[in-house]
């Protein structure tokens, strides 16, 4: 019993830090979201007000195009970014696994991951610039008129999503590369002896055995996209006309432009609930496998 108490004592510093820097802010944020800036209890009124603002959801977008509101923009980001990151990371990991010089190529791909997001945002701004950007220049080779892709409402969000792929795909590539190392060689050798084609080996052996890694990649990517802020803030500031606005940026606008911490707390709480809904099943699944 005494030994158990002694062990428990070692948890105290970590628990105290968690309580001060995680639990208290979370509870305070949720609490704040139920009050008006004047300090009156408002229950869900703040939620109704925030979610009904065009900055969050703009139904007119379905008639005239972007912006659709930060909520829909985040959904678009997830729908496009998530499968592409998973797919590209897996493809890079598999292709570069046994290729001569694969490690060098992987290092180059990994540069996106080690680039600070703010720097990444600035690079994106110039990558898509009509005057000096490489992307419009390449598109011009195929007959497109060069223009600054982040400056137009119909291309701004898609440009940022494309850029975020460069910044985040290395993460899934590294995880898949590590996952591939855990698959025993004899599994592949047996498949080859049985006459399985490379495609069959990929879809029937590699992909199923990497399922736990895929779970982690999907969860982490989802959470990353959900809180995406830096590159949007730096590259477009959510514009033009809110066409690339996202939830985290809208939260920033409420907090530091409107000086309305209550509205910002609403968005923060909303993001936290969505994050929990996605991550809890993953952690449960991980626990089950254990």
């Amino acid at each position: 019993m005494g030994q158990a108490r002694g062990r428990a004592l070692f948890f105290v510093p970590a628990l105290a830090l968690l309580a001060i820097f995680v639990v208290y802010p979370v509870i305070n944020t949720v609490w704040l979201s139920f009050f008006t800036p004047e300090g009156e209890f408002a229950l869900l009124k703040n939620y109704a007000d925030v979610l009904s603002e065009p900055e969050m959801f703009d139904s007119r977008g379905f008639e005239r195009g972007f912006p659709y509101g930060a909520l829909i923009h985040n959904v678009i980001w997830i729908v496009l970014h998530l499968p592409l990151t998973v797919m590209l990371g897996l493809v890079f990991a598999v292709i570069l696994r046994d290729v001569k010089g694969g490690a060098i190529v992987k290092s180059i791909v990994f540069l996106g991951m080690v680039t600070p997001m703010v720097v990444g945002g600035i690079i994106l701004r110039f990558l898509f610039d009509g005057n000096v950007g490489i992307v419009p220049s390449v598109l011009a080779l195929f007959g497109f008129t060069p223009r600054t892709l982040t400056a137009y409402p119909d291309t701004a969000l898609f440009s940022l999503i494309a850029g975020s792929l460069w910044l985040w795909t290395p993460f899934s590539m590294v995880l898949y590369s590590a996952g591939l190392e855990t698959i025993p060689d004899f599994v592949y050798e047996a498949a080859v002896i049985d006459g399985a084609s490379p495609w069959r080996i990929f879809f029937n052996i590699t992909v199923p055995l990497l399922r736990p890694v895929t779970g982690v990649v999907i969860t982490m990517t989802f959470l990353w996209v959900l809180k995406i802020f830096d590159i949007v803030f730096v590259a477009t500031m959510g514009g033009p006309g809110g066409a690339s606005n996202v939830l985290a940026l809208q939260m920033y606008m409420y907090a530091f432009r409107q000086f309305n911490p209550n509205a910002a707390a609403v968005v923060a709480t909303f993001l936290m609930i969505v994050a929990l809904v996605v991550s809890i099943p993953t952690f449960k699944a991980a626990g089950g496998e254990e």
Partner: protein
Amino acid sequence: MKRKIVALLILAIAICSLPGAAAEKKLTVISGWSGPEMDAFMPVLKAFEKETGIKVDYQIYRAEDLAVLLPAQFNAKTTPGDVIYMWSWFIAKHAQDGHVLDITGKINEADFIPGSLDPVKLNNKLWGGVYTGKVKPGFWYRKSFFEKHGLSVPATWDEFVELCGKLKKISGVKAPIASGNGVGWPLSDITEHFIATYAGPDVTHGLINKKIKWTDPVVKSVFTERLAPLLKAGYFSEPIEWTMALDLWWRGDYGLFFMGSWITGMVDNPDDLGVFSLPGCKGIVFAPDYAFVPAYTKYPAEARQLLAFLATRGQEVQVATGGHIATYRVPLSAYPPVDRGVASLLKGTVALPDLDDTIGGEWQAAFWDQLKLLWVSPGRVDEVVDNLQRKAD
């Protein structure tokens, strides 16, 4: 013996801790000026150090970043700087909340351009100092470029449109007017100039005071009948990062560039610069910079002294470096020749406050963002105007 050594050490530490024996006082000034702008500002701080013997440290923070940093710092009753350059609306707002030191009586208001201290006055007290200002006079051009192509400064709106048409036909010119883009402010400067010219200075004041709506026919017509047709005709470039736009315009990719008077300090040959306002212009934006002393400075007396210096004699040092127009009574001889010309543009027009800097807050960010949309989608002008009014409500 050991006890004696320990006692001596304690005594030495105690003596060093006394206020008089502490490290010399050092004030921190924060502003967003970097590069050439910072180089031009440093002589001002050196002059203060020389005059008072108080050391001054300089740190660069953009106003957008300070808007995030300072509220949190102030709530924690601390400050990253002793004198901070910031938007006037921000100073006024935080003065109301008790985060700003009162500097009433530290400078003589009669020595400044009338009205220039108004944005930082509240309840008959002065909460900030006004520094030099920048005039946003209109469209800059290279005299050599105009001479080479036989172009002249327009005297009417039709001539202005005609000039844009001529510029568009010149080989190698991508668009008649380069549209600078930062976080959005260069586009707002252009728009404010159009409003001041074609709706009038009173409308600018009315929009600031929320007495006139953005959907008012007079305001809306500036967008629909002046700006949007030029944008639809391709006379403005798409928004380009403004320092890049400056380089491209200077090398001849664009014919005109709308920018503030600080441009005179950013080009290779200021003598080749010409500038004209929109024909019929009745008001020109004169945007001074403002600074304040946070309530949490360790050295309130010295910080107030520095702010008073910056607002007065500091301005004289600053204007000599070029690109700045004083709000304090500075002799004309202190200005470089090119700035005397810029200052002369103010004659016969009303000096207007910077509209978006004065309103500030979320509306300012929305203004910038909506103008970025207008610039690339002029067909959505009605939506832009409606959104500006919605944000103003």
